[in-house]
């Protein structure tokens, strides 16, 4: 594994600081002023550099890893040139050594998002979130339609205009397409939309209800709730919706499957214990295991890309909250009021819906930012990996 230089330095520093002082009577806990890297955006030249600096600054701030400081005291200085469909970006350290130099091509925002993610990966080792996509349901038109946007809330695009019911969008891991549940036929079917050219296909249309499809991490399969055999159960199909293979067999309702990062397991909500609870099952089938959350009503689980956590919605006393469960220790904490959590690629941020907004939560600091609003009631957000 590649350990970025800046991170190793921080770790060394942390170890040094955490060492107990010899001879001290009471243990001393040192709280460092900041675990953030200090950076500065130096000279960015080119035709659209003003816009590029704004996007970059926002992306880097959103990541939660950086403090912006004057160039003289910055650990790293960002520079480059942005014109047309490309940005040639550089990062130099305090000594003037180049730690990143690369050209990114794409749209005005896309190329800068790529640069931002590369800066984050180079300096922290963490995956960035800037060059991903989010999707959600909004009621601006008076109907539930599917929308996508950049994860900073810009570039909002309405994908469906059926004036019907279009819900539960789930982006493919690479963000190139999504599946959603649509009622255009009068029944709940699963549709797929290619984001590049907007083409749409109805891919799952068995008798009864077809809903809640979610891509596997390799993008080759879907987990989905189908009722064709006489009860809402979980199935796995190909990414194109073919060859359904049944996973569950209970009296109740199975819903909202979410995949482990290796694709070997699925966590979902199951209600035959009397109220919806989270269960874990092999994606090949077999018996399922209850995940004890300590809450009575648990739905909409979303497995973090690092595999360590699952975020989900609980209902307590008539209102909804977002919970994060650590799969290793079983520790479960309520982090916000809202519904439908979805982890970002960094396993640190998640989005959820709250009334008329998509909210971004930094699960490490608790900081909340409104990403999208003004589109009516918002529900069922999704985030690409």
């Amino acid at each position, binding site marked *: 594994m590649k350990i970025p230089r800046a991170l190793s330095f921080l770790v060394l520093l942390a170890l040094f600081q955490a060492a107990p002082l010899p001879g001290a009577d009471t243990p001393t806990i040192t709280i460092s002023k900041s675990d953030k890297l200090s950076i500065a955006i130096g000279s960015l030249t080119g035709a659209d550099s003003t816009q590029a600096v704004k996007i970059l600054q926002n992306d880097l701030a959103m990541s939660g890893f950086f403090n912006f400081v004057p160039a003289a005291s910055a650990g790293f200085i960002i520079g480059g040139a942005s014109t047309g469909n490309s940005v040639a970006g550089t990062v130099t350290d305090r000594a003037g050594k180049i730690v990143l130099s690369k050209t990114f091509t794409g749209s005005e925002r896309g190329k800068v998002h790529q640069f931002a993610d590369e800066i984050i990966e180079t300096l922290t080792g963490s995956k960035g979130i800037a060059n991903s996509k989010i999707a959600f349901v909004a009621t601006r038109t008076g109907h539930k339609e599917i929308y996508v946007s950049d994860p900073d809330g810009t570039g909002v695009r309405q994908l469906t205009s059926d004036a019907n019911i279009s819900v539960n969008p789930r982006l493919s891991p690479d963000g190139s397409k999504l599946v959603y549940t649509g009622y255009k036929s009068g029944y709940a079917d699963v549709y797929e939309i290619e984001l590049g050219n907007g083409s749409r296909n109805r891919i799952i249309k068995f008798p009864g*209800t077809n809903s809640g499809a979610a891509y596997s991490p390799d993008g080759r399969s879907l987990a989905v709730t189908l009722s064709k055999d006489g009860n809402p159960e979980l199935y796995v199909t190909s990414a194109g919706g073919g060859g359904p293979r049944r996973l569950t067999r209970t009296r109740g309702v199975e819903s909202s499957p979410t995949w482990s990062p290796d694709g070997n397991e699925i966590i979902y909500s199951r209600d035959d214990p009397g109220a919806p609870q989270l269960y874990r099952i092999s994606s090949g089938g077999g018996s399922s295991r209850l995940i004890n959350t300590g809450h009575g009503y648990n739905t909409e689980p979303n497995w973090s890309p690092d595999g360590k956590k699952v975020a989900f919605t609980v209902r307590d006393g008539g209102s909804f909250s977002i919970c994060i469960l650590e799969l290793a220790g079983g520790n479960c904490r309520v982090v916000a009021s809202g519904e439908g959590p979805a982890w970002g690629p960094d396993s640190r941020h998640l989005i959820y819906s709250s009334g008329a907004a998509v909210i971004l939560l930094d699960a490490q600091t608790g900081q909340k930012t409104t990403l999208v609003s003004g589109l009516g009631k918002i529900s069922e957000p999704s985030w690409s990996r």
Partner: protein
Amino acid sequence: MKTPRLFLMLAACVVAVSFNGCVTGKKTTQPSGSDADYVNGTPLPERQEGVSFTSPNVDRDRFHPVYFAFDSFAIGGGEQGKIDQVAQFMRGASNTLIIAGFTDERGTPEYNRGLGERRAQTVREALIRAGVDGSKIQTVSFGAEMPADPGSNEGAWAKNRRAEFGVVR
């Protein structure tokens, strides 16, 4: 209370026989694995071309909706009479039927779609038990969409937790 394991196995087998023929206690029914021993109801027939619950060729007012308790898909004692009426009609008619399941707004959306479908399927099974040909009954769930009463109070929620009957003309 301790129930002897043999008795449980026998009971499970009896249930299995009544649904689908017994498989001598081995869990070999599906190659894809199984979760508990529940043998589901009757598979749905293919959808009819050009017909859905909301299409104009479907009569949605002929029978009273069946109502449900919060977060439940059990048919209450007072509701069975409505199902008997539909069963009586269906046994003597050549029409097909679409049962649409709905929930109140107090749940998360995807779970509500599943719960609505489960309500529709429960009513379908009750009709099949009452002698109606299952191949004439399709189901659909709208979850919390299309509430019968748009209010946000107990009275409205009670009207929205329902299964409606659509008779295909």
